[in-house]
């Protein structure tokens, strides 16, 4: 048996290149779609939304009310809109016009003046916990002494006694908690999954479906040369996408690059290898492009949902995290975020590097085992 031939591989690559050139639409799509996704996800998804519409039903227009409202507005989480009655505000909450309803009782200022510590009811639309999460947290942190300045001297508390300890919360790496900084590095991994996993599994299955694979197998080209010839163009495409998305992420979204770009590219190379091994495995099983497409989707959905791309990894139950830990994208995400946002080096990303390497080895072994030289 003749061994691996770089000349035959070059012939495969040349053929793929010609075919790609004849199909500029696919190339354009693979470069434009990631950009659209970047803008879509980067600008649209916000896990820390501010300026949430809030209905104010006030039966007591007083100085206390005004101070309280302006304190709420100052948190930037609430946009206050006055409503005439509790019923109309309730209806607005139901319809989703507002996410909060703040009710100030008629005797609010009187009770405050008498030092009776009246209660104010804040209704929140709990159907989307993510939307109201940060706002409710801000509500709790509203300074207890917000009304101090307006109170009659006898009720004004002296500067509150210093608590025995103080917690200083410091959101590092992303102090403003801008969601885009979390989403955009993750998007690199998602886009790479699409181009390498989905496109490779379909590209190889296409040769089978159109019958050209039978022809190739009857010629002296080795299966490994066929597979590499199909894979390498998509690696190139994947890297082109990565560079494009990364450049846009930095320029448009101000994503910092605190770590080494080279280290990021090399780690993503390992991630690409994982996807290609998986794509190759799918393509050996699938008989039609449609089947390959479905298998790739099957792997892609958990990649979106369980990897920590859209939802916090820490919030998932144990079994879901176990699945997530197996997926290479989970680790690629952490590495991309780590290197870009935290400036992580090899030592910090190692815990996520080796699981990807293990995945690539196992999936590669399965692909090689399933990859047949004959039509049997």
């Amino acid at each position, binding site marked *: *048996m*003749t061994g691996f*031939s770089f*000349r*035959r591989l*070059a*012939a*495969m690559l*040349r*053929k793929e290149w*010609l*075919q790609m050139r*004849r*199909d500029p639409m696919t190339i354009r799509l693979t470069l434009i779609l990631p950009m659209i996704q970047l803008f879509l996800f980067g600008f649209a998804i916000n896990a820390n939304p501010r300026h949430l519409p809030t209905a104010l039903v006030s039966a007591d227009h007083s100085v206390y009310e005004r101070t309280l409202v302006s304190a709420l507005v100052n948190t930037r989480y609430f946009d206050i809109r006055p409503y005439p009655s509790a019923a109309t505000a309730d209806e607005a909450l139901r319809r989703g016009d507002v996410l909060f309803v703040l009710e100030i009782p008629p005797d609010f200022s009187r009770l405050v003046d008498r030092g009776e510590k009246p209660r104010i009811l804040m209704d929140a639309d709990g159907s989307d916990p993510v939307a109201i999460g940060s706002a409710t947290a801000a509500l709790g942190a509203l300074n207890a002494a917000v009304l101090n300045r307006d109170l009659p001297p006898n009720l004004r508390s002296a500067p509150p006694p210093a608590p025995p300890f103080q917690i200083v919360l410091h959101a590092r790496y992303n102090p403003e908690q801008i969601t885009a900084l979390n989403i955009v590095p993750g998007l690199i991994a998602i886009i790479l999954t699409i181009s390498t996993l989905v496109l490779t599994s379909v590209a190889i299955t296409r040769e089978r479906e*159109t*019958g*050209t694979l*039978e*022809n*190739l*197998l*009857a*010629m*002296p*080209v080795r299966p490994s040369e066929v597979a590499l010839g199909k894979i390498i163009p998509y690696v190139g495409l994947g890297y082109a996408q990565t560079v494009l998305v990364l450049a846009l992420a930095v320029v448009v979204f101000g994503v910092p690059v605190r770590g080494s770009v080279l280290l990021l590219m090399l780690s993503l190379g390992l991630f690409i290898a994982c996807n290609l091994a998986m794509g190759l495995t799918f393509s050996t099983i699938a008989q039609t492009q449609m089947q390959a497409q479905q298998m790739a989707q099957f792997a892609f959905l958990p990649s979106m949902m369980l990897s920590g791309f859209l939802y916090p990894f820490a919030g998932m139950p144990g079994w879901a995290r176990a699945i997530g830990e197996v997926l290479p994208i989970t680790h690629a995400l952490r590495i991309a975020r780590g290197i870009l946002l935290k400036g992580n080096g090899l030592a910090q990303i190692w815990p996520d590097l080796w699981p990807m390497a293990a995945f690539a080895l196992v999936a590669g072994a399965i692909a090689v085992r399933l990859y047949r030289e*004959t*039509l*049997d």
Partner: protein
Amino acid sequence: MSASSPAIDVHDLMKSFRKRKVIDGLTLRVETGEVCGFLGGNGSGKTTTIRMLCGLLRPDGGGGTCLGLDLLTEAPAIRRQVGYMTQQFSFYGDLTVRENLEFVARLYELADRRAAIAAVLERMGLADRAGQLTGELSGGWKQRMALAACVLHRPKLLLLDEPTAGVDARARRQFWDLIHELATDGLTVLVSTHYMDEAERCGRVIYLAGGRLVVQGTAGEVVAAAHLVTFEATGPGIERAVRALRAAPGVETAAVFGQALRIAGLDRAALAAAIARLDDGRLTWQEVPPRLDDVFIHMLNAQEPAE
């Protein structure tokens, strides 16, 4: 390999797919330089046999040689010297004729790529269409392009799997002219077909049924070996007569060809009786020599009674 040794010499080949026997003890011998027609109904195992001969499928049992090389252990070496044309057109429609041929030439690592492509384009009459996208060619030209790709590396054996299916009569004839030209140069050709006119152009035909070789020989030998009796009638009312005859005992096939009604069967007396029963004097009957297609339909019926 001496010139007299057979190009294909395999025995007792077995192949099953999901426990269904597709090839069931096939023994096959094709002499060097022969144009051999490979016939048989759909699902008789023609494609499977061809795939085993070029190493795309591994036989479950049996063995033999192809071009003097062992079928089981030397498949890659066999592939280098065999040109296999698949049943379904399997080149790249989004590449031009020349680009497809260049791709094939590179895979075979041909030393004189340019010259070889120019020669094959000339020979197949494809020179004018070299720059055309293969997907835009008509069926006949596609088949020529595929044949060109199969002979580019100067194989010693051509395996053609229904190369002319769905191609018009003129293109089919031209295609066969090319096959004969290639055979003149010493190439061995095994070609499967469903067309009887093509079978008649083969030096020898091999008939396959149920994964076994049923009969082989020249077209004349195959016809003679079947001992089939055929009668032909002309005259008014043949359309009506054909129905009655189909149901008659001893009549295996009855069909109308243009102005003539043709019946065939093994038993001359039974056929004569059927004719006598039907005859109203308006039809003129005469016994005619059986044709190859009568024989094949007879053999198809014998293998698997018509649905």
